[in-house]
């Protein structure tokens, strides 16, 4: 595909007018604030915002020495590892069986993809309700079976709660991509293996799973980004980052420091760290897409 058009239009002003709306929006609401975050991350202001001074990298050094920030980092890492692993395994399982099914696969697909439409905050509320210690139906059943569930006090339970909500919400997406990936594997490969006597289990591990690896890797990146950025609403709705700060993921802490604790320097430095993380993920994602094209 050509990267340039041979036939173009001429106008000294029209292209600028066409670009203007997008450029105004990204200038005002993307680049200016991002620049502000960079500047503020190098400054410190007092509580009333009356005096501002340059402090170099001190905000970053403070973050590095801030145990709650480091804890928030590891919380986010644990959260994303759990969501990615559980979400990918479950949806791969479903996709493999949906790929096998001859009749009714369309219906299964329809019935599995709609959670994508549910807002993360609503997903958080749904799961919170089922697992609420005093009224939840699941926590009631767990208690009947002798398991004391308390996501308000036990941080493992709180983490389990947000992991379930996040996985539930993301299964639809993973499922669709795995199913598309499985369906694009040539049937002749599977048939050849079957003629050679490979059973379905063996065929899955030595043909389908390796050939799916680009899809799996792509989904891994997407899921980690999803946990980093989009699960704020799940956390805020289901646990408020609690108990204590035990489910306070990076974006939640950033929000808290900026709008509840009003610590401008610290929150700007956290913004910059997050930006850096997002840039790394985006680069990984695009390098991978390029690779897939050259396959």
């Amino acid at each position, binding site marked *: 595909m050509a990267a340039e058009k041979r036939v173009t239009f001429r106008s000294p002003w029209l292209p600028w007018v066409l670009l203007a709306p997008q450029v105004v929006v990204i200038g005002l*609401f993307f680049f200016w604030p991002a620049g502000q*975050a960079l500047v503020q991350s190098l400054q410190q202001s007092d509580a009333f915002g009356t005096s501002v001074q340059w402090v170099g990298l001190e905000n970053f050094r403070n973050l590095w020495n801030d145990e709650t920030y480091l804890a928030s980092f590891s919380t986010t890492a644990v959260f994303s590892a759990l969501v990615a692993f559980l979400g990918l395994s*479950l949806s791969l399982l479903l996709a493999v069986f949906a790929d096998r099914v001859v009749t009714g696969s369309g219906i299964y697909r329809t019935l599995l993809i*709609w959670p994508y439409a549910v807002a993360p905050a609503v997903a958080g509320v749904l799961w919170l309700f089922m697992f609420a210690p*005093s009224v939840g139906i699941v926590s*009631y059943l767990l208690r009947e079976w002798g398991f004391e569930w308390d996501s308000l006090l036990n941080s493992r339970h709180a983490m389990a709660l947000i992991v379930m909500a996040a996985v539930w919400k993301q299964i639809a997406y993973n499922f669709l991509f795995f199913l598309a990936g499985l369906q694009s594997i040539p049937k002749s490969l*599977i048939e050849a293996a079957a003629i050679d006597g490979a059973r379905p289990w063996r065929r899955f591990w030595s043909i389908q799973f390796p050939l799916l690896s680009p899809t799996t890797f792509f989904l891994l990146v997407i899921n980690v980004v999803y946990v980093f950025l989009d699960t704020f609403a799940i956390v805020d709705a289901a646990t408020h980052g609690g108990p204590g700060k035990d489910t306070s993921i990076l974006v939640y802490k950033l929000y808290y420091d900026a709008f509840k604790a009003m610590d401008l320097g610290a929150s700007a430095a956290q913004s910059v760290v997050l930006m850096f993380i997002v840039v790394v993920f985006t680069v990984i994602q695009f390098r991978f897409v390029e690779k897939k094209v050259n396959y």
Partner: protein
Amino acid sequence: MVERRPTLGILAHVVLILGVLVVALPVYITFVASTQANDAIIHPPMPLTPGSHLVDNYKAVLTGTQEGGGSTAAVGRMMVVSLVSALVIAIGKISISLLSAFAIVYFRFPFRMFFFWAIFVTLMLPVEVRIAPTYKVVSDLGMLNTYAGLTIPLIASATATFLFRQFFLTVPDELTEASRIDGAGPLRFFWDVLVPLSRTSIAALFVIQFIYGWNQYLWPLLVTTSEDMYPVVIGIKRMISGGDAQTEWGTVMATAMLAMLPPALVVLLMQRWFVKGLVDTEK
């Protein structure tokens, strides 16, 4: 299938049906709760079949006459706010991306690629990483608690611009030449040739962006402080007060059902474009 293995076929159906049930369970429980009086919910176990308060609960939340320790704003109004915001975000993103992709592909002007990359880089600046300074800009512009504040900062779209650019590059030059010979100017060509050709991409993007707009949480949480500008997703959160016992779960769950309904309908009714949109926006 390669060979006949009836047991495996049955197993596949069993696994899929289990999957469908587990995926549907939270919504079923939500639905049941939304039809119960609060008393039935706060003394567990809650009944697992629909109760008799369906009409009461939904009418109460839609008109804002429900009880509860948290916010009791009318959900009917919130649904309108959500609908307007989601439509403005989806249509706005598609429109400004179509225009900028058209400018970048069909014109030659200084800094053309600079603008393209500037738009592209916004992919790496999601609202989550720059919340405080963006909030300040919006508040300085007096856009708090307005539709403009809820939508315009979210309207830029690197993915949509990129997608339309890719698509325009595949449109044959002969079409451009033919319409030029017929005397069509650039805007005429854009409106009568390019936009109709992009119909399926537009439909696919619309589905994805409508859901994105409807489901926004962090941004509306910051820029709306007055109840009459809450989108429904924020409204639910505000209805849950302190401990679980004081929350009127019946009405909260009715609100949750209402909040899920429009985007779920969009996905189910426009499934083909939804799938295309998901796949396209990740390229």
